[in-house]
Every structure is written in structure tokens, then in C-alpha cells.
């Protein structure tokens, strides 16, 4: 099973805004993390993969066949959880999942089994007959995850799946995604880098529509191995560091402040300690300008 995204170009406003610039990547079963700042082209990419949007050029191939040609056969193996905006507020969760089953073309018996089991998975069985309008943000998020999994998809596209969830639910969902990802291609777009840090097979870094990097989490963090430091400074120097370095963390220790910075050139005349980089440091290094 293979999803190839080949040389995708997409621009808006008569070509003045380039959303995707010759984007190419090949996805095989496993979890992929899609990282990029706002406006990087993540949503455009997801809409192209989910057959909601046409690319200006390039193609998306599923097992060698263009998804446009596959049409509804492609959509029947696709699960999509969009970024949470609004839902049908007057639908109960039960009705919503049955409606989504209808859209996914499930048979009644299969739908019933799947809905029952997914409600347990996302811990919403008790709320099945409540209206979606009365759901909290986290509950809506779980409802969206449940609908994406109804057709047991081979390709699962998740846009900010853990936004609004409490830590316990976040871990639960993260583990669940990791569990089901064995035989699926899962593409997760998120700003919460810790979510994908532990479960993503590979991380895709996207900036201004271009693929910046595409590698495993370890390989990517290795790239900045000697660039992350913790510096102990006085309060008066904080402004200088904030202006001249990418500060990924700040903590107070007695009279001093410990700043975690990501930089190519380490500061001199300070008490410096090299630390192990995280994905968050990498995100800062790649996306926050050339400090």
C-alpha cells in the first residue's frame, strides 16, 4: 500500500499566493506527522489528498493509480477528520455517526457494529443520544475521530486530532492512533509536536508550500544535535537573548533565568550547557527565521 504525492503545485489568487510548490512525498503504512506554521499549505495538501481540491499540476497516486480516476473507490478507503469548525448541532452523536455511515456507504449491520465499538473507543457511549450542539470541544473532537474510522480506512487523514482534548484523552487517542496505524497510512497535521514526536514514523516539514524536510524524528533532531543549549542568565540579559536567539523555553532558578535556545552559534561569556534536542526545538529552528 502506497500513497504517492507527486510534484503537486497549487496557487491561489491567480498565482500570486503559492500554497504548494512542487511538493513530492511517498507515504507507506505508518504514522506521518505534518508540521508547518499557519499558511504553510497543510490544509491545501490535505484537501488535495482527500479529493476535495484540484492541484494545478502534479498527481496523487494510490497504489500507482490516480485518485481522480479511482473516484469513489478511493474515497471508500479514506478516513478524514477535518480541523474542528462546526458540526450538525441538532444531530445526536448516534444520528451523526449513522449519517456518516450512509455517506461512507456502509451496510446497516456493519455500521451498527462499527458505531458501537467506536463509541467505546472514543469513550462516548454514554453521550450517544446527546445533541452535538451540547458537546464540549474535546467531545466533538472524539466524535470526529470516530466518524473517520467508521469505514476502517486504509488512509487516515487527521487534522489537529488532539486539539481541545485533556491530557488523559490525548494520550488515549494518541495510543489508539498508534495502535491502528500498523496497516494504515496515517497523516497527522498538528501544532502540538509532542503528539507526533512519539508515534510518527516520519515527520514532514512544510514551509511556504515547500517540503523542507522529510525524515524520522530521530534523524531530524540529529540535524540540530549541537545547536540546542541551556544558558543561565541574569534578568537584565533576557531581552538580549529574546532579540537575538530562538528561545524555546524559559525557567527561573533562584536569581537566575535559564533560557533554552536553538542556535547555530552558541553565546559566549555565559554558563552554557548543551542539551538533547526535541522536535519542538527543531520546529523552532526550521520555522523561526535565521536568528
Amino acid at each position, binding site marked *: 500500500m502506497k500513497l504517492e504525492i507527486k510534484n503537486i503545485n497549487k496557487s*491561489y489568487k491567480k498565482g500570486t499566493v503559492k500554497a504548494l510548490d512542487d511538493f513530492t512525498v511517498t507515504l507507506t503504512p505508518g504514522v506521518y506527522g505534518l508540521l508547518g506554521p499557519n499558511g504553510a499549505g497543510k*490544509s491545501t495538501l490535505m*484537501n488535495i489528498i*482527500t*479529493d*476535495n*481540491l*484540484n492541484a494545478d499540476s502534479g498527481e496523487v497516486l494510490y497504489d500507482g493509480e490516480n485518485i481522480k480516476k479511482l473516484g*469513489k473507490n478511493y*474515497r*471508500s478507503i*479514506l478516513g*478524514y*477528520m*477535518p*480541523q474542528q*469548525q*462546526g*458540526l*450538525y*448541532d*441538532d*444531530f*445526536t452523536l*448516534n*444520528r451523526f*455517526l*449513522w*449519517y*456518516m*455511515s*450512509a*455517506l*461512507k*456507504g*456502509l*451496510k*446497516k449491520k456493519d*455500521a*451498527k457494529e462499527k*458505531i*458501537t465499538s467506536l*463509541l467505546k473507543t472514543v469513550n462516548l457511549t*454514554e453521550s*450517544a*443520544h*446527546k445533541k452535538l450542539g*451540547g458537546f464540549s470541544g474535546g467531545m466533538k473532537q472524539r466524535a*470526529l475521530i470516530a*466518524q473517520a474510522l467508521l*469505514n476502517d480506512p486504509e488512509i487516515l*487523514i487527521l487534522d489537529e486530532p488532539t486539539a481541545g482534548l485533556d491530557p488523559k484523552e490525548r494520550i488515549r487517542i494518541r495510543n489508539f492512533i498508534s495502535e491502528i496505524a500498523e496497516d494504515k497510512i496515517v497523516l497527522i497535521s498538528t501544532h502540538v509536536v509532542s503528539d507526533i514526536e512519539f508515534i510518527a514514523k516520519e515527520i514532514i516539514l512544510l514551509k511556504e508550500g515547500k517540503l523542507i524536510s522529510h525524515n524520522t524524528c530521530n534523524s531530524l533532531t540529529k540535524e540540530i544535535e549541537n545547536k540546542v543549549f541551556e544558558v543561565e542568565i541574569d534578568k537584565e540579559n533576557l531581552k538580549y537573548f529574546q532579540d537575538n536567539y530562538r528561545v524555546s523555553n524559559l525557567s527561573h532558578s533562584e536569581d537566575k533565568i535559564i533560557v533554552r535556545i536553538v542556535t547555530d552559534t552558541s553565546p559566549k561569556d555565559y554558563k552554557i550547557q548543551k542539551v538533547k534536542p526535541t522536535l519542538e526545538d527543531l520546529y523552532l529552528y526550521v520555522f523561526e527565521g535565521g536568528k
Partner: protein
Amino acid sequence: MKLTLYEIKKVISQKVFITILVLSLLMNGFILSYTQLNKSDNYKLSHTKSYSEALSEYSSLSTDKATQKIKDKLLAYEILSDFQVLATTDDKRMAKDSEKALKEYKKNNPQAYAEAEKMSKSGEDFSNEKQMLEDISDQLEYIQFYPDFINEMDERAERQSKAKLFNDENSFSYKNLFKTADDYRALQGTKLEIGKITNVLTVGEYKISDYLVVAIIFLMCIYLFSFERDKGLYNLVRSTRKGRLATILSKLVSLGILTFLVSVVFTLSNFAVSACLYGFDTMNVNIQSFAEFRNCTLPFTVGEYYLVFILSKASSMLAFSGIFALFFGIFTNAVLKYIACGGIVGGELALYFFISADSPLSFLKYINLFYFSDTFSLLSTYLNLNVFSFAVNILTVAFVTIIFILVVSSSIVAVIFVKCNQQLRKNKADLIIESFKKKFCKINGSTRLISGESFKFFLQNKYAVFFLMLIVFSVFNCFGQEEYTYSSKSDYIYKIHMEYLEGEVTTDKLNYIKEKENYIKKLESKLNNSEFSDGMMGVITNTIENESNALYKIKEQYNRIKMLKQQGIEACFVDENVYGVFVSDPRREWMSFAFLSLILIVSIPSINTCEYKNNVICLIRSNKNGKLKLWLTKVMIGLFSTILSFICAYIPYIIRFINTYSLKCLSYPLNVIEMFESGKTISILGALYVELISYLFVAILVFSLVTFIAVVTKNNLISMLLSTVVIFIPTVVLNRNENLRAGNIFESNFIMPMVIIITICLILAVLFITLAGKRFTGTGFTQLRRSYETGN
């Protein structure tokens, strides 16, 4: 002040509110003009100019001279009716009496007699002019007797106070007698003149705008009090410095200002519509110059009355806003709010309509929001209420009650808002239902798309309520009669003949025709009678003309029946006027189509725009059945709604018609009717079917166009506005167009052009649906633009 402006801005920046306001104003004006235009024998409308001329002519004369002049004119009409009796009656005694009367008229009133002779020769129908003069005469008579009515008040009070029933000085009856006399005393010496207050009466009697304004006040309350609570914003607002008393006061003031403005706009628009139809009222005469205001003790001219009317109407609407604000303040639960507001409006309406004036409970009729809003009655009636044995005028009672409602409701709302938590609490009924569902409902549902889509359209978007109201309206519309209005005398004579003749051709009926022919011959022979005056001759000539026209129509139809019989087609007598209009009536055809278009414009867009509104379009389109199948399901729901709307728009008239004229003639061939003579042989019912099918195709075209607009704009409101411009406005502009309508198929034998038009409609409908479908399922950026704009 700033907060108040923000609150007003919040309401008027709501597109839905502005759209509803504009549509309500248009609908209000349309209904007012429609009801006035459809009033039968409305000479004030058909003879606006001559009515104004007559008024200015008689107002320039002294009352006595004007009365005498009108009396003479009316006498001429009386003489004319005697001419008509003498010319047409077979009753010898009646003829003798008329002849005698005419001789006396000629001798005693030669001028009026000559005038009648002149009128009879012209052959015109003078009933409207006669009615006009009678009305002016009534007004003159009223003006002459009004001073006596006022002057008698003191004497009457004195006289009645001596009666046992009234002589207790501490009783309400006694006080009422003298208060009435005191109030009317101020009117002594009031100058009365003849004039016109058609607009005052028309707007005064028109109630629809009151109901619309009440509905708009309710909507404003939702925007001012419920929106922030529903969105949980009150916690934020109430935590700020001016977030409590200042906020609620600014909301109440905004509601007051908006209510006042909306009410004034509606009332002014009513006066404007009425003035367009009837011309301007006589503004500078005292309002007591008109019999309708005989009991009014307010010393106003008509112009001043306009101002007082507008202000009084707005004040009564403020009372409604106060009551609604109170319920919106007390209840956080939406259902309870609606029930309370609906209950008070329904209750007040029932008390206003069902309690009679002489009931012991009549104070409930008078101290009533709907009585206060019936400004015309309030200002034109003199009424004192018994308030602890004191006689208090209804105007004072209304004023005090409105102030009381406003002060009390505002205070309660303010205290509740300042002191109580404004968080939305869950409805207890909802909690019970939820726990019941949790216990007893299983995970079950349907995997048919139509089920989910129907739920979305009818229940989620509340169109079930819309269609239910439409069905109830249509059912009520099915009751009643559909009488044909006879515009000319010959038509009326024709109707009388057809009441006997309608149905199969029998020997008796043929004899009846012969009898009528003989009657005309007899009248013709009277023309040779030299004893008859010129006036009589004129009347006889007119009668012959009318009778001959009616009989000619019947004989022509008989000839067509004979021709059809020769072709082996069984045909019968039918009333050409009634069934002609049943099959072909430009006004009805266009009105029904405009009504249907309006229903489709309001209902159809929501089927296709709701996914864009809540931004789940990308989610649903990424599923197996999320494109073509979903689109086809939406089209099916749209078609079902179109057919339902079509039935509601077209069937009530047919049922009313059948109620009035029965099914008897519907199977007869249409070709017996003169205007359909050249058409293909088809029964009246068959023609009706063809017509309905034609309109159904056009309705489907409208549906497809509205759907296309909705898919392109992806916005419910813009779709409605655009569809109104593209469909509804042209429909109204083309109203009464003779050629562009289905009824014309049978009149002009336009079968081929009509088939072509229907085919074009069908092709266009398919084209619009296909294009809309392509857009809905397509993957161009424009398809997702709205989701991008709102989502990302």
C-alpha cells in the same frame, strides 16, 4: 449612550434581521394593496379623481346648498331606476306604479327627470357615482346634526342623573355621565367640513402590520437578550465594569428605540401605500368632521391625527417589547421563553376577540395590548372605564398601563440581569429526555442518505415548521367560495340564464332560449310605442342590448355544441365566464406562480448551503457517497419540497372552485367556451391537468435555478436575495401579462409554442441541476472558497 449604539448596531448588522425586516415591509405593503385592490365596488379606488373633485365641489358650497344639490342628483338616480322597472317588468301592476311615479317626477322635478333621461341614454352603470353621492350626503347630514349631538350632552347628563340607576353621586355611572358631558363640552363650536379620510380608515382597519411588528420585536429580543447568553458571552460581559446595570439598560433602551423606529416605519409605509391607491386625505379639517370620529373627544385635525396615530401605535408596540423583554429576562430556557411570549400574545388576542363589549369581563378586552395597538378604535371611541368607582378615560388607562408595563418589566429585567447568574442552564425536559434515551434507546439508525438529509433539511433547519405552516395555510385556504365577479349587466343576466341552462342540452332548455328570444322581441316592440319618453326608450334600448348580448353568448355556445356533436363529441352548456376564468386567468396564474416562487426561494437554498454554513463540506465530500449520490439525494429532497409547495400553492383554488361550482361541468369539452373555440378538443378538467403540469415544469425550473444560485453563492441569505432579484421581481413585474402563461395555450391554440417552452424549461432545469451538481461535487477552489474563508 455608546453602549446603546453598540447594541443597536449588533441588531441592525444582522443580515437575517435586515432581510426579514425588508421582506416583512414588502409583504405588508403587498397585502395591504392586494386587499384594497380586491375590494368589490370600491369606488374610492376606481373613481379616486371624481371622488376628490366631487368633494372639492361640494365643500366649496354651504352645507345646505351642497345637501340640496346632492338630493337632486340622487333623485335623478331614483327616477332612473323607475325607468328600468317600467322597461323590463312583465308585472302590469308594477309597471303602472312606475309609470305613475315617473309622471309625477316629470311634473314636480323636471330637472332631475331630464338628468335621468340623459343618464339612461348613455347606458352607463352609475352605481359607483350614486354610492359616492350617498356617502357625501351622509357626511353632510352628520355635519348638520353634530352640534346638536354635542350640545345635548349636558342636558342628557342632567336628565339621566335624575334616574334612580344613576343618581348615586359616588357611583361610577354618575361620574361617568358628567365626565362624558365635560369631555364633549370642549368640542362645542368645532368647525366641521366635508373631506376625505380614506387613508385613515384603511390604515386604521389594517391589522397585519401589527402582527408583523410584534414578530419583529420578538426577533429583536432574541438578538438583544438571547444571542450572548446562548454563546456563553454573558460571563465575559458581566465581569466588566459596565457589564451589568449599564449593559442591561442599554439593551432595554435599544429595544425601545428599535421598536419605536420599526413601528413608525411600518405605519408610515401603510399610509404611503394607501395614499398611492387613494390619493391624499383632507389634512386640515377637524377629525370630528367624519362620522367614524363622532365619539372622539380629542381636538385634532386629520393631519394631527396622523401624528397621534403613529405615536400611539409605536407606544402600544413598546408595551409588547416590554413584556417580551420581561420574559427574555426571566427565562433562560428558549422553550419557556417562546411558550411565555406565545402564551401572552395568544391569550391577549383571544381576550381581545372573544370578550364582548357588554361582558362583565370587558375590562380584559380593553386593558389589553391588542386593544391598545388597535389605535383607530382607541382614538375614535369614547370610553370611560370603572377604576375604583372613578370614570377614567381609556386613553389615560392605556397610557398608564403602557408606562407601568415598561417601568415594571425594565426594573425586573435589570434586577435579574444584575443579580442572577446568566449562564445557560440545561432544560429539565431535555435532561429527562436525555436520561430516558440513555436508558432505553439503542444504537440504531438508517444507512440511507435520504434519511439523514431529510433530517437535516426538515428538522435541523426547521423547514418542517415552515411546511407545516404552509400546509395549514393551504388547508384553511381550501375553505370558502370562489365566486366569479360579474363586471357588466349582460354578464349578470348571462349568469342568471346559465343557472338554469348549465348541463346537458334538453328540449326544456331550448324552449327557455326561445322564451328569452320572445322576451327581447317584446321589448323591441315597446320601442315603437310613441307614448314612452326618451328616458324610457334609453332604458329599453339598454335592456335589449344586455339581454341580447347574454342570449347571443348562449346561442353561440349552442352552435358550438351542435358542431361538436356532429364530430361525435358530447358537449353541454357551461358558464363561459366562470369556467373561462377557471382555465385561464392572468391575475390568478401570476399570483399563484409568484407565491410558489417565494416559497421555493425561501426553502430551497438551505438544502444546499447548510454544509457551507457549518463548514463540514470537506468532511462529507471525502466520503464514498459524499459527492454524486449526496447531490442526487439533495435534488430529490428539493424536488419533493417543490411538489409539496406546488400542491399548497395551486390546489386550494381548485378545491374552492369545486366547492362553489361542483364537479358537474369539469368533464365537458373546453371548446364550447368561446375563448377556447379554436383550441384542441379537451375537457375542462383535462385543460386544468395540462395547465398544472405546465406550471409544475416551470416550478421545477425555478427550483433548479434557485439550487444553482445556492450552490454558486454557498450562502443561504445571498441565495434568497439573488433569487428574489432573478425570479420573484420579474414575476411580479410580469404580473397580469396575458401571453406568458399556461392558460394562454387553450385560448390561442399555442400548443406547439407551449410544448417548446415546456421542453426548454425541462432542458434548462436539467442544465442548471447538472451545472449545480458539477459545482457541488467539483474540486475547484471556488467550491471550497467559503470553507476556506470561514475555516482557515
